[in-house]
Every structure is written in structure tokens, then in C-alpha cells.
């Protein structure tokens, strides 16, 4: 018989909001039995399946790929499916709430439309004005691919944008995620539309609103150097592309 793995009682305090009955969000607490290797997402599942079926949250892949379950866990934006119980201080309750700065719809679910609207505004698709040389492929050197590798990793979870205090103020700032996804194409040697994207972001609600707070870099579950990407876009505006 293998030794039994120790489990713990973890208290989660979740910010609930049901638009059909509540005027204001309120905090509900739940006790769940968890293993250290479980994730916050497992705790939410346990609550939904065993204690309160009305708890609402988004998740799809459960493995850090789809970007559905960004939420504020103990005050920091994290993916619930990538946050292990053993990495939290479970001697205290774990606070879970929806990400900030986007309209709250229900419990942990926000309206992501303003976020995607900014994303779409930077034209996040390849724009190439000529046919590839051999008619088949647009060849890139290793160095050319490396130039924008970091920003290809984005899963559009909104953890960065909804951790940004400038975005919180009035929600008009394009936000880190839109700039990351513009960076993805601005520095892609196959793309011909860098000037247009730089022009879109070289505006009142664009990169100049960034105050280098680094909240975005801290929040990104893919470890993207978000603040650095934003600075590189600023530099491209000031010095031109090299």
C-alpha cells in the first residue's frame, strides 16, 4: 500500500454576483478538501459540483492554453488552472474574484468584449503585400523568428490588461495585450503593415499611456516580458524600425 497523501481543508472566499438578484457583489466562503498538487480551478470545480451549482466561472482547456480562466487570486491576476494550492498560503483563506476593469457579468465572469475590441483594433493578422519568392513559403532566419518569439505566446487571457492601473481608470487605454499582439506582427519580417500598427498605437490611448508599472509582466501566465514589448514598440515609434 502506498502511503496516503495528506490533504488539507482550504477556505476559499469568492466574490459572488448574480445580476438577477444582487444589487452589489458580495463575498461567500467555502471549505474544500484539497491536495497540495490540486489547483484553484479544482477547488472551484469541487465547489460547483458538490456545494453550490450556481457558482459561475469560465474554463475550457484546464491546462493553461485557452486563456479562459484568468481571475484575481489573493489580489493577483492568475489562471486558476495554473495556480497550485501548494503555492498559496492555505493557513489563510484564499480570495478569488473576477478580473478588474471589465464589466462584471456574473461571479467570476466579465464581459471580455472591450478587451477583444482593442485586440482587433491593432490588426492582429499577417498583412503581406507581395507573393512569397518561391511561390510557397515566406522564409525567415532563426534570428528574424526569434525577434518576436516572446509575443507569439499570448493566449489572450486578459490577465495583463486587467492588472493595469491605467486601464482601470477609464478603460479607454488599448492595454498591454493589444500592444503585445501588435508587437507580434510589427517585428515579424514577413509582415508589411508595421507602419499602420505603429500609427494606431502612437495615439492618445496608445503606448504613451503606459507608465511602466510592470503589473502586466507580473500577471502574464505565459511569462511574456510584456513591459519590455511595450517599450520596444515605443522605441520603434521614436527611432523607426531597424
Amino acid at each position, binding site marked *: 500500500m502506498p502511503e496516503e497523501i495528506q490533504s488539507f481543508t482550504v477556505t476559499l472566499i469568492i466574490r459572488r454576483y448574480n*445580476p438577477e438578484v444582487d444589487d452589489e457583489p458580495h463575498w461567500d466562503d467555502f471549505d474544500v478538501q484539497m491536495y497540495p498538487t490540486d489547483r484553484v480551478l479544482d477547488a472551484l470545480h469541487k465547489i460547483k459540483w458538490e456545494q453550490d451549482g450556481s457558482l459561475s466561472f469560465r474554463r475550457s482547456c484546464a491546462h493553461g492554453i485557452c486563456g479562459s480562466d484568468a481571475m484575481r487570486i489573493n489580489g493577483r491576476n492568475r489562471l486558476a488552472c495554473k495556480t497550485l494550492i501548494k503555492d498559496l498560503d492555505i493557513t489563510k483563506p484564499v480570495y478569488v474574484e473576477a478580473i478588474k476593469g471589465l464589466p462584471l457579468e456574473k461571479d467570476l465572469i466579465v*464581459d471580455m468584449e472591450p478587451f477583444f*475590441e482593442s485586440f482587433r483594433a491593432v490588426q492582429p493578422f499577417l498583412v503581406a503585400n507581395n507573393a512569397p519568392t518561391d511561390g510557397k513559403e515566406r522564409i525567415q532566419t532563426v534570428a528574424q523568428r526569434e525577434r518576436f518569439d516572446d509575443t507569439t505566446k499570448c493566449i489572450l487571457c486578459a490577465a495583463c490588461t486587467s492588472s493595469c492601473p491605467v486601464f482601470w*481608470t*477609464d*478603460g479607454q487605454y488599448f492595454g498591454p495585450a493589444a500592444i503585445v499582439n501588435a508587437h507580434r506582427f510589427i517585428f515579424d519580417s514577413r509582415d508589411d503593415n508595421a507602419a499602420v500598427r505603429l*500609427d494606431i498605437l*502612437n495615439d492618445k490611448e496608445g503606448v*504613451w499611456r503606459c507608465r511602466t508599472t510592470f503589473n502586466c509582466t507580473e500577471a502574464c501566465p505565459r511569462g511574456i516580458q510584456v513591459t519590455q514589448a511595450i517599450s520596444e514598440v515605443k522605441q520603434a515609434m*521614436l527611432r523607426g524600425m531597424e
Partner: protein
Amino acid sequence: MTSTIEAPRSPYSRAPRSRGVNWEKWGWIYMRVSGVVLVVLIFGHLFVNLMVGEGVSALNFAFVAGKLTTPFWMVWDVLMLWLALIHGGNGMRTLVNDYATQRLTRGILKSAILAAVVILIVLGTLVVFTFDPCPAGSPADLLPSFCSAI
């Protein structure tokens, strides 16, 4: 029962890209350039006024009057005045843009900031260039030493 949730902010639509001088870009550059110069000016100012020689106890009318008759310090102080006030004013403009959501409130606050910056720059510059270090009828022990020579 269904209630409509009010979106906490204005509609998603974006204003078209504004033309003309890119104030946001130049403002961003100005904050950094003036910041670098201000580090030298402000810490130089504090060092000379508070640490050199007798330190803070040397500060009096005569000390300031002495500095404001030296062209080097006049240029230093005027530069510090202009750079810091425009820097501070532009910084406060950024904060107003962040936190004031009503058009009218924004307008009033930004006009107040502009008025404060302009008035202080004009007054400050006037003082530095029209300063009289030896006002007539003042006790000699309060005036800079060179006044007795006149």
C-alpha cells in the same frame, strides 16, 4: 426577474486617430528629458543650499540674494523653475486624464493646472531677473555683504 447591468465605462468605440502634433508622444519624451536634467538641477540645488559650508543655517535673505545676483545661479534657477513646473503640470495633466471622466471636470482641472503653471513661471522668472538684492532702507546686517560697497 432580469436586471440590466450597466457597463461601468463609456462605449467601446474609439475616437478616430487625431491629426497634427502628437502631444502624447512629445509629452512622454519631455517627462524623461526634463527628468534627467532635473535630477542634476534639483540635487545640485539641495546640495549647495543645505550641505555645503555651514549648511542649512547659512540660509537667509543675504544668501539667496547673493545667489540671485550671480548669472550662473540665475540661469540654474530659471531653468529649474521652467523645467519642473512644465514637468509637474504635464504630470498632473496625465493624472486628470486618468481620473476625471466628465468633459467639463477635465476642462476645468486642466485649465486650473495651466493657469497655475503659467502664473508661477511668469512670477518666478520676473523675480529672478528683476530681483533687487539691496532694497533701500533695510538693516545692513540682513543684506549681502556687497551691498555696503554700493
